[in-house]
């Protein structure tokens, strides 16, 4: 059998209250082994309390070439920010 061992992306929650963050990837035959390997490779020093693994092929990513189209429209929508609104100085805490 010469099939490539699947690639997985690893996400770790460092402590409760924080989100899972992507920390790297690894190869494993199935989800269970991916979890076990992730524990050994990415949490040898108490870096995590919870692990997610997802096979890399299931991730759909935006293309950097589309970045302009996707993200630039937000740049001219200054009215989405609180500082856009002009209010009197006497008004505190708003």
């Amino acid at each position, binding site marked *: *059998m010469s*099939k*490539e*061992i699947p*690639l997985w992306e690893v996400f770790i929650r460092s402590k409760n209250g924080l989100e899972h963050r992507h920390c*790297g*990837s*690894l*190869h494993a*035959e*199935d989800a269970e*082994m991916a979890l076990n390997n992730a524990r*050994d*490779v990415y949490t*040898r*020093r108490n870096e995590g309390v919870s692990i997610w693994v997802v096979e890399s092929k299931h991730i759909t*990513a935006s*293309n*950097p*070439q589309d970045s302009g189209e996707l993200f630039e429209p937000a740049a001219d929508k200054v009215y989405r920010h609180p500082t856009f609104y002009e209010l009197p100085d006497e008004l505190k805490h708003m």
Partner: protein
Amino acid sequence: MSEAEIKSLEAQFEAKIANDEKIEPKDWMPEKYRKTHIRQISQHAHSEIVGMLPEGNWITRAPSLRRKAALLAKVQDEAGHGLYLYSACETLGISREELYNQLHTGAAKYSSIFNYPTLTWADMGAIGWLVDGAAIINQVPLCSTSYGPYARAMVRVCKEESFHQRQGYEIMLSLCNGTEEQKQMAQDALNRWWWPSLMMLGPEDKDSVHTEQSMKWKLKRKTNDELRQQFIDQTVPQADILGLTIPDPELKWNEEKGGYDFGPIDWDEFWQVVKGHGPMNKKRLDDRRNAWEKGKWVRDAAMAYAQKQNERKNKQAI
């Protein structure tokens, strides 16, 4: 793409790096950038993996449970470093299989320091102290290199390295505070590892082909000679604390330059080892190949098991 378009993309790309922005896997990059990074990151990964062998050699013979646990943890870290780096390298579009293949066929290089034998327990001290010490000096600047996945891997690696060096130095310290024979053992290890450690920081600047391009891409932030000087200046006082003598009669403090002068390095030896004629080159590669080939049935079984589980799940779903 026309040549002019590529030129303009290249200019944008270089400007991005000069501006300290990171390059991420799906971003456009010049072919040369991709190739150079595959070469450097994979060499680095191979070095971590082959680097486990000289130390693995002593795990079963560590002199105490404390030492054994520490050495085992250190070697396991090196496996982790190799894995972080292989993953980073794969984001450039090369498969793990191909990377292993390059190592096993001798097409890829790894750090030549691992082609020296580990003859006594003191070598575990000298390696942690000197080899990991030189590695740290090499690696810290890479935490801010331009390729995102490489930089992130290096941040993790560097966080873990300082324990490696400290456990090595502690081994040396115990030996130096022990019997005359133990101290001799420490001195002998220093004598054998000193020069290879200096070589580990790479050829002299005047003979180094990659430096300028590497500097631009932040694959290198200091030249080999600068790194070597830094290593020597930091290590000599550490040898003094141990009461050991650096095996270089020409080593002398130079007040004017604020660093040590040192004797000539035997670069013939370095190139011999790089070309495969070091004392352990053959054994290291044989051990790697063996591990890979003898582990094949385990990988196959795991794949077969995963496939069966999958089929079973699918059948239940129907």
